[in-house]
């Protein structure tokens, strides 16, 4: 049988235990390899998307805007401007003569119509080529309308999704420092890198509230422009999903001396550790006591039901392929908690350190892969006889076609998977896919009438 991976891609796949750890990553996707990655624009769009009272205008032909319309499950407790898809829908004439005039007019029209608190203007591939001066247009409209109008340098071809995260962070950095920070508690944080999918940030905020900690800004789940403007008044940045918002935390550390810690809200272990880390930072015994109490209370609520799932799922096999590898750490632990073995783990944009750590925390034989594609992923699922695959929409049909269970852990999901409740939801979702009776009928488990004997 021929190798599944292209020769140029072999160095981006590591099998635990076969050789000393080595993996190549952080490089451009190989042409023709059908990468699961998106582009710079996608990176910026997903990070800024949940800021619900900002106008998000995509400057380019219609595709970029229409494929990202209401794409995230990022909820808002108030305005829902972020759920609309705005575009300049550039036409041939705009490409020839430049799109600046159209952009300016579109911005003014939309700002007048929706009265947003700020506007983000996303650059797309073509804008990078025709050379529209986004800065100049944004500055002009900013003066005219008296709200921040911020260009996002997210031309699709200028790097990968990670460069898009950076561009989004640069854009947000222009807001930070412009708001009033008085009356902010000394026990205060910003939540970075949670996007309030299915209401997750509301749970997390509630935990911090119960600990006596003030959240200044959600960055960006259920985000508000005015909160972000005063984010520099917080004492600590609590950063999840390091790929997306770590750059911003670093900028804030440099600019405002705000330290940051990296956390994850997935799984009991990491969720608890996140709360303890924050408590430790404030070095206040009362906060720590409240954190302990909270964890105990929350774990007690979910533990019995999780044990039930664990019993049923014991020894089943899981594969993970996610956007950023940081989430994968938590997933490996979460699967362990419900008795399952992770046999493959990969990501679109992990770093060498991430993969090395993954190699350390997974069992021998586990496949670790960077920037994979459908042919590789499907072959791993078959080879490892996986029971459930965790990924996003693009990974789903790969699993389903082969008769393998699936759990959506991407930004489109409608189930809250963060926090303690999220762990229970995760266990439930894994259980409801793995234990479904439909697998009895799929070809890998059964024959069907008409099969040749």
């Amino acid at each position, binding site marked *: 049988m021929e190798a599944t991976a292209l020769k140029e891609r072999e160095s981006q796949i590591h099998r635990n235990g076969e050789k000393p750890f080595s993996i190549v990553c952080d490089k451009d996707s190989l042409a023709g390899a059908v990468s699961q990655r998106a582009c710079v624009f996608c990176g910026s769009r997903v990070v800024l998307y949940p800021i619900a009272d900002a106008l998000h205008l995509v400057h380019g032909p219609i595709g970029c*805007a229409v494929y990202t319309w209401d794409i995230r499950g990022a909820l808002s407790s108030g305005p829902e401007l972020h759920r609309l898809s705005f575009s300049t829908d550039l036409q041939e004439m705009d490409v020839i003569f430049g799109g600046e005039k159209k952009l300016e007019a579109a911005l003014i029209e939309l700002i007048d119509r929706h009265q947003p608190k700020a506007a983000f203007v996303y650059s797309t591939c*073509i804008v990078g080529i025709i050379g529209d001066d986004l800065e100049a247009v944004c500055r002009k409209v900013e003066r005219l309308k008296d709200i921040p109008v911020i260009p996002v340098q997210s031309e699709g071809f200028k790097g990968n999704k990670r460069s898009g995260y950076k561009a989004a962070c640069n854009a947000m950095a222009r807001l930070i420092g412009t708001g009033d920070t008085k009356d902010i508690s000394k026990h205060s944080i910003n939540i970075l890198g949670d996007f309030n999918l299915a209401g997750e940030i509301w749970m997390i905020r509630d935990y911090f509230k119960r600990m006596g900690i003030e959240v200044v800004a959600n960055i960006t789940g259920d985000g508000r422009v005015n909160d972000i403007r005063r984010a520099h008044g917080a004492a600590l940045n609590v950063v999840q999903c390091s790929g997306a918002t770590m750059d911003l935390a670093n900028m804030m550390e440099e600019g405002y001396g705000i330290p940051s810690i990296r956390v994850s809200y997935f799984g009991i272990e990491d969720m608890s550790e996140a709360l303890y880390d924050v408590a430790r930072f404030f070095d206040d015994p009362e906060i720590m006591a409240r954190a302990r109490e909270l964890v105990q209370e929350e774990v007690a609520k979910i533990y019995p039901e999780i044990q039930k799932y664990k019993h049923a799922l014991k020894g089943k096999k899981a594969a993970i392929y996610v956007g950023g590898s940081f989430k994968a750490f938590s997933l490996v632990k979460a699967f362990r908690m419900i008795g399952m073995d992770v046999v493959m783990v990969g990501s679109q944009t992990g770093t060498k350190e991430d993969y090395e750590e993954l190699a350390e925390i997974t069992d021998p034989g586990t496949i670790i892969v960077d920037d994979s594609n459908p042919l590789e992923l499907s072959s791993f699922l078959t080879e490892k006889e996986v029971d459930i695959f965790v990924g996003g929409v693009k990974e789903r049909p790969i699993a*389903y076609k082969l008769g393998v269970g699936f759990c959506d852990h991407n930004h489109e999901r409608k189930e809250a998977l963060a926090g303690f409740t999220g762990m229970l939801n995760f266990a439930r979702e894994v259980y409801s896919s793995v234990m479904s009776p439909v697998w009895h009928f799929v070809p890998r488990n059964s024959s069907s009438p008409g099969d040749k004997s």
Partner: protein
Amino acid sequence: MSKMPNYISTTNACKLCRPLGAALAFRGIEGAVPYLHGSQGCATYMRRYIISHFNEPIDIASSSLSEKHAVYGGAANLKLGLKNVTSKYHPQLIGIATTCLTETIGDDVPRILQEYAKEEGTGQTLPLNVHVSTPSYAGSHMEGFHGAVKSVVEQLATAAPTKRSINLLPGLVSSADYRYLSEIMQDFGLSSTILPDLSETLDGPALMEYEKIPQGGTPLAAIRGMGGARATIEFGRTMNTNKHGSGGLSLQEHFACPNHCLGLPLGIGETDRLFALLETLSSRTTPHKYVQERGRLVDSYVDGHKYVFGKRAIIYGDEDLVVGLTAFLAEIGIKPVLCASGGKSGLLSEAVAAVTKGILGADEMPRVLEGMDFFDIAAEAEQLGPDLLVGHSKGAPLARKLNIPLIRVGFPIHDRIGGQRLLHLGYRGAQMLFDTVTNSLIEKKQNDSPIGYSYM
């Protein structure tokens, strides 16, 4: 008729970009891999969008261009990409569509492909290439789809020996529609080439092993033979053939293969036109099976007519689908009040008038608007007071706001499963549509009623 305000910005577009249409069309050719010459994001976004409708794998390859390629040209990456696709997928054909990036930097794809053939072609058989120019800033996914079909016939069809077969170019319809069309052709005893054919490639069975390229699609040999067909039937009253030509017209021009352009066969009127043509082409009368289908359909129209009469419908989506749906809705007594599309063929109004002639009076004609987005449609809806929306799933937020039923048809259906199994065409499709529309209106009435009748 009041004029729409001419907004500069677009909000919630009612169209997709041109390369997506081309990628879908290429997916319907046997052994083909769709390929986008552009940056990585386009292919990934389109895959995600298509997967959310079909729940099927769709691998779309990409040149994955980065900044230096944007400056120096994408030729090297296009060649590398083709090489990698060839070695991993072993395709018979690679369908290459451009994107706004590569159109703007001026990559000369035909020339690059010639160079590639020269460099790589010695000593091995390369898969065929078909290329189509699909700048996303001109036209929508429908121009992309029809453009890909046209490129395929122009670049592959040959002056084959005359056969009795018929070419059928249905445009973008559901997998169930392609299956049904094939069944109709067979039942008329007509051998046919349906291009493309998404019946299997985007609605396949559960598998033991992942197929690099899904089974099915129009066979290449059949496409090559299209020049020798007896006739072409092409669906689409709003294809702007003056501007873009069409697959059917190309076959007529190059191979003197007569082209019959019909509307999408939606509802009885438009389907009768197709069956009349098939009777002529096959020299047979309509098979009993379809006579019965039509008979049952008429019978059901009678059974249900009171529940739908006079209800006001907004129809939106791809122009040809809008035309066909309007024909169907008008013939069952529903009043189309707005026909809207993001497309801009310039032909929508004329086509709607043509298919509703004899059914709608001059004072009953709907507003027909091209270049619409959902902001415009919502604004219109406020004035028009519709009882139902008919279109793809992107109208769901509007239907929810208006608290009226949305009849999900066409592409995409992102909030339900089985979009590819929705049947729209022919008498059988009209039956499905009629039952769905009627029952949705009855359900709405039942749910809103304080009494809760358990009979209609």
